[in-house]
């Protein structure tokens, strides 16, 4: 009988994503005494089991060979499929990242199984889990029951807390041999995009700018605020379409969905498609010179004012407090 939870931990460049540790911590909370197994796939990744161990999985499977140096759908699907065969879990968890969105549905189809992506809540319902998946860009929530022998869930970053043990936990570490016999689409190059040091979907603070900043020459005003807060820079579609900033910064229905602790919207009107991407943020601050702007209906705190005056003053005030 399938039991327990297998968690796919995403690593790139020798680091496990924070969002993956969130998924692992949530698996621990939902396991209800059943086994939680972590899976790490890559090349020279054995040392990462120490990072995974902090979230107290029962077992850590490591697939480590040159075939897995770069992500490939079919290679990683073979690794995950082998892990599923080995562990026979009732659920497979992963963080909802570009890698998991590519991988999990493929492996779910292989198992003719239920799969829900971008899950924002998980509840126990009898001997099963029930999950919430925001739909219509957060305007509704679907509550889903997953009834296959093994079911697949990807967790929205920044919603589930990381829970680490001080020390004293020793997960069993197991080498899992896997050879992928069929990798038809291969990664041949990876180019880092310039700018953005903190990944938008995982940032705990985001400062975002819209048409109210008047032109790309004014990003530095927001970047200073980002620097002070350790925040990532977001943008509305209007300024992305105007070519003021790259699409990777876009928040909203046709951009990224983010759930930071703090979202500061500067000169953004609050169109429904923008709200779709950020309305699940814990605290929303709106700075807009139009008191009637729809963004104020959704803001925890609002300042009616000119971004060119308010943002530099806010940056100064925050510096006083942190200094």
């Amino acid at each position, binding site marked *: 009988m399938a039991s327990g939870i297998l968690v796919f931990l995403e690593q790139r460049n020798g680091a496990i994503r924070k969002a993956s540790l969130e998924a692992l911590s949530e698996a621990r909370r939902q396991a209800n005494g059943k086994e939680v197994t972590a899976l790490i796939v890559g090349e020279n990744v054995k040392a990462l089991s120490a990072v995974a161990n902090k979230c107290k999985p029962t077992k850590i499977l490591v697939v480590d060979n040159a075939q897995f140096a770069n992500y490939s*759908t079919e290679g990683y699907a073979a690794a995950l499929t082998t892990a599923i065969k080995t562990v026979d879990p009732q659920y497979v968890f992963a963080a909802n*990242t570009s*890698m998991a*969105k*590519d991988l999990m*549905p493929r*492996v779910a189809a292989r198992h*003719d199984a*239920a*799969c829900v*992506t*971008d899950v924002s809540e998980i509840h126990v319902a009898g001997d099963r889990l029930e999950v919430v*998946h*925001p739909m*219509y*860009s957060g305007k*509704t*929530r*679907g*509550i*889903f*029951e997953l009834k296959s022998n093994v079911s697949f869930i990807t967790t929205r970053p920044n919603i589930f807390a990381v829970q680490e043990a001080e020390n004293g936990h020793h997960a069993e570490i197991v080498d899992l041999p896997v050879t992928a016999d069929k990798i*038809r*689409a*291969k*990664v*041949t*190059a*990876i*180019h*880092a*995009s310039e700018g*953005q040091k903190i*990944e938008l979907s*995982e940032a705990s*603070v985001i400062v975002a700018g819209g048409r109210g900043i008047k032109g790309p020459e004014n990003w530095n005003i927001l970047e200073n605020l980002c620097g002070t*807060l350790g925040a990532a820079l977001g943008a509305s579609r209007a300024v992305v379409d105007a070519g003021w900033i790259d*699409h*990777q910064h876009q928040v909203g*229905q*046709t*951009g990224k969905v983010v759930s930071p*602790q*703090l979202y500061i919207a500067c000169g953004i009107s609050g169109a429904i498609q923008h709200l779709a991407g950020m*309305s699940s943020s*814990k*605290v*929303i*601050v709106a700075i807009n010179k139009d008191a009637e702007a729809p963004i*104020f209906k*959704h*803001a*925890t705190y*609002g*300042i009616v004012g000119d971004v060119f005056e308010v943002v530099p*003053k*806010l940056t100064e*005030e*925050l510096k006083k*407090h942190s200094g």
Partner: protein
Amino acid sequence: MKIAVCIKAVPDTETKINLAGDKSNIDFTGVRFLTSPYDEFAIEEALRLKEKNGGETMVFSMGGAECTDVLRDALARGVDNATHLSDPSFTNLDPLSTAKVLAAAIKDGGYDVILLGQQGVGGDNSQVPAMLAELLDLPQVTVIMKLEITGNTFKAEREIEGAHETVEGTLPVVLSAQKGLNEPRYPGIKGVMAARRKEIAVKNAEALGLAGTIGTDKAPLKLKEMALPPERPQGRVLEGDVDTQVKTLVELLKKEAQVI
């Protein structure tokens, strides 16, 4: 080159969403349906591939009557042929069942390139493309921003966190389009006229060899109910001059909200 495009009819993103009385779905009364935004990039890429390499383009949409308009719109943009996958059992399907229907329609078509959107707006699952690739036993590249096809090889660039990945391989392939892949054209008046006269093929479960196998009751994933998101507590607009507002804000963020 044979190119298939899968498009979904979705409620206009401006739609105010209300729930149906029994919470089983949203209330579709008066809702206007459009092509899912990412699918427009998929259509455009298909048209460009044909312009460059010659061949034939076919667009598929699964669902009810709402599919007709989006299929006609694709024809108006220049897609050669359209197929409506329509059956009472194809209602309210989960992503895997959707992929099964699409796979049945596509599998024997001899397609070199199969294009989808990276996410269907509304369901917001981002699952169908990878599931379809698995069911067809083909390689996949999802969330692509760039595509080059030379002979029978492809080179695609996909967006990942903070980077772009170049992925290469041999056709046939399943691809999902991200914004930035191209700039979609709009249908011209001539296209719209021509599309009106075109026949849209219709295939049901039986024609697809799927009779009795597809349906919400057959899928292991069940939508139990839909709910509206919790209301955000009424926010407040801060008073005073700018200096006071800024000071108050920092205080509140530290003490009340405790987020900095």
